[in-house]
């Protein structure tokens, strides 16, 4: 995984991306017990030329293609890890990139989405495995309730959180 982090940092230094944050199961593992995963989800803000409206991942594929990294479907294989590059689909994911947590692993620095953003994205996505992720965050005490509440309010997820709380936490009126 160290090489994945190093490649991401190099991409940022070379101006291919302007920012990134690791989400998905690898991001969640920063806060909870490790959960088996096949891939690495990397959310990126692209360094787009001024005036360009359409967002394209082509510069990433070109850059990593020149470095001889193979592609497999939507993945680019970096040192054995299938890496999926995702552009933010809404303001929540954009904010998650901007407010990611700086950390390091195996001697390489990297950026991981905050637990609160990962929980909000999981809540919005709403699959069973996403709800399990939120419950894992809660079990580990990884969520700052004030920060989570702010994110939920900003991105229109408060009602969904209340429904989640009622269903899975047995709470009638839970703010966060």
């Amino acid at each position, binding site marked *: 995984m160290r090489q994945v982090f190093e490649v991401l940092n190099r991409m940022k230094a070379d101006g291919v991306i302007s920012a990134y944050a690791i989400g998905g199961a690898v991001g969640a593992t920063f806060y909870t*017990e490790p959960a*088996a995963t096949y891939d690495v989800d990397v959310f990126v803000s692209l360094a787009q030329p001024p005036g360009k409206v359409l967002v394209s991942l082509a510069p990433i594929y070109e850059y990593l293609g020149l470095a001889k990294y193979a592609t497999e479907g939507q993945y680019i294989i970096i040192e054995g890890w299938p890496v999926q590059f995702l552009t933010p689909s809404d303001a929540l994911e954009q904010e998650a990139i901007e407010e990611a947590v700086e950390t390091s692993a195996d001697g390489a620095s990297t950026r991981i989405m905050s637990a609160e953003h990962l929980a909000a994205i999981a809540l919005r996505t709403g699959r069973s495995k996403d709800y399990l992720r939120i419950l894992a965050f809660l079990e580990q005490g990884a969520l700052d309730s004030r920060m989570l509440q702010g994110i939920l309010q900003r991105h229109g997820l408060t009602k969904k959180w209340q429904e989640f709380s009622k269903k899975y936490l047995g709470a009638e009126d839970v703010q966060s």
Partner: protein
Amino acid sequence: MSNPELRKKLAALSFTEKIRILEKLRDRGIAIAKAGLRKGTSPKPSPHERSKAPEHR
């Protein structure tokens, strides 16, 4: 150790240690997939292996 205790212990590991566990889990998953165990069958022997295998009656 109960499951919640084990999860807490694993969650408290450093990110570096957790990444190493992720890599082991990934390698194990790949090895299982290669062996064909996910389909509930043993890997098919190659024609060469079939010709060498003793016959059982």
